[in-house]
């Protein structure tokens, strides 16, 4: 868990690139607020309701998002940028490596589609192998061994010992891996 530290001044030093993305993000917050009002108008209030009904609080939250989002748009336009999150492994001076982010997201998506046909351990091993490779771990065979061992250990601990029903896939029939 990490919270960011504001640097001196507006924090522009830590913020990367042009503020286009940041502006879009603030605008998305505004639009969620708008969406909250539009979609919230469709919430039915039963006539029997004795209290303020199910619509009032959603409106309040949408109002909060709208006001805060607008404030943020204003701030970003005036050049007050957010301070990007810091961390021991984060190099704030590095350029954003979108390719690696894309690869990781892709492997998580792939994993979601593999759990059912292949079973959890195999799908998890593929995710670990792919993610470690994307992040630059070499050689591939050590990644593979680590991935398989980790997947088997997790399947054994969580499905076998703790009774979490992870589909065992090809391990079906081995009692220690749950099922």
């Amino acid at each position, binding site marked *: 868990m990490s919270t960011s530290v504001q640097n001196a001044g507006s924090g522009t030093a830590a913020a990367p690139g042009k503020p286009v993305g940041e502006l879009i993000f603030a605008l998305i917050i505004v639009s969620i607020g708008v969406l909250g009002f539009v979609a919230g108008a469709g919430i039915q209030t039963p006539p029997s309701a004795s209290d303020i009904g199910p619509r009032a*609080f959603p409106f309040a939250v949408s109002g909060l998002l709208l006001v805060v989002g607008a404030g943020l748009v204003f701030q970003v336009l005036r050049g007050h940028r957010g301070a990007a999150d*810091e961390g021991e492994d984060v190099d704030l001076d*590095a350029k954003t490596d979108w390719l690696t982010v894309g690869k990781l997201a892709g492997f998580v998506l792939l994993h979601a589609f593999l759990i059912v046909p292949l079973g959890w351990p195999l799908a998890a091993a593929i995710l670990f192998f792919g993610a470690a490779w994307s992040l630059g771990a070499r050689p591939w065979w050590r990644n593979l061994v680590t991935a398989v061992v980790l997947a088997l250990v*997790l399947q054994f601990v969580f499905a076998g010992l703790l009774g979490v029903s992870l589909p065992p896939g090809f391990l079906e029939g081995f009692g220690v891996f749950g099922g």
Partner: protein
Amino acid sequence: MCSVDNFLLLMEGFATAMQPMYLLFALGGVLVGTAVGVLPGIGPAMTVALLMPITYSLEPTAAIIVFAGIYYGGMYGGSTTSILLNTPGESSSIVTALEGNKMAKAGRGAAALATAAVGSFVAGTIATVLLSFVAPYVAAFAVQIGPVEYVALMIVAFLTVGALLGSSVLRGLASLGLGLFIALVGFDALTAQQRYTFGSPFLADGIDVVLVAVALFAVGEALYVASRLRHGPIKVIPVTGGWTSWLRKEDLRRSWKPWLRGTMIGFPVGTIPAGGADVATFLSYASERKLAKGEHKKQFGKGAIEGVAGPEAANNAAAAGVLVPLLTLGIPTTATAAMMLVAFQRYQIPVGPQLFESNSTLVWALIASLYVGNLMLLVLNLPLVGIWVKILQIPRPYLYAGILVFAVLGAFSVNFTPIDVIILLIVGILGFFMRRYGYPIAPMVVGLILGPIFESQLRRSLAISQGDPVALVQSPVAATIYVVLIIIFALSLLLKRRQRQFEAMVAANADASDVVRGTATVSGSDAAVATTATPADPPNREDTGR
């Protein structure tokens, strides 16, 4: 409720917590907690979220003891990282890094580790004693308050959490609003009306809290770190000598007062929703710096042991303090406390003022396990520090790949459907952009968890007053809560500002430029290290290599 009763209940708690099985669970919790505290990119809140599946098979007491162990363990582990790792870390440990990292570079790493561990133990134990005696009284008071007062307490909790857990007030509030919004999706608990489900059956049941938390903490963090991964070797400052010789008489003499002062600062700050341990460590550091005299004062910024002892004690005392509002009011003020509240909800244990009465065995076993856990942590962190240093060196690709695997495990085991893994990814991408643009994550998680409770209390109060909002501030108790807490809020905001100025000042000071980054040039930081480093640590000087 008299204190003798409480003492007896605490003793019963010990009788439960000392059973071999629970001792084992506590040990497991503090081990995992220290490990994740040491590891960058993963913290106690994320770990509790990731381990939520254990609530399916463990009984409540065991699971809560594990989670409490993780919470305390994380506080110990963090100091090891900030003292020994030659890269800047998180803001809650940045104060320790200021002096601790300098001590380590000057070959005094062992003393820094020792004063942090012993200080954490002293503070953790005293704060747990305070928790045992303060909490029942707060709970006894809290059972008398009604929904109106609750609304007052929660509004203030929202405000402080949103405004203080981060560097920008607006961004914190936006994060809080996003959490509240996601919590609205699904059926309204009171009228069974669908809200923001857009006709989708997947959204009708709402979006699971654990799923969102895991996505924000784990996937968001992994994607964010991946986007800016620090390459090159991991530089850990070596520690020499046997651990028994670490804390010399002189060190002890300089440390014990900061330990106690840190405790006295940390516990109350943790209790009130003032931004958690972060503010406590800063306050302790600032006061130690002010109180130091002569030669010791000059050491500040170059490795003063008081600057490690005080903040580390404050950090752990604040952790115990946070449990007071959590256990007595059901109000979490940090992300980890929010995840512990989720664990209670999983077991359908109502968290709030009734907790001390309805589940007294569980609560007292939990408190007793904190004493035990603290003792275990002292042993784990002094003689066994070498193990944690090894963990610190785990290759980062494996660390973050492993975090992703744990995240999909946690997501899949919520409902056992792969769709949840896809939702995990989507919310994770949201978490990535939040980190990128400086939005704090913790307010969102707190909003997500407290939102539904807040709405039901709000509507209950308004149903009683027949829709008259003035009733929300008319009760004398509620009015008092608002006034008192607005003062606390204003003070905390002021403090936060002071802290920022202070950090900026430290950053501007070339001495610390390699701790607080982004403001000084690389050559400046290099020169600063060269002036403070002793010949004992040549391999760790080159910060520029990162």
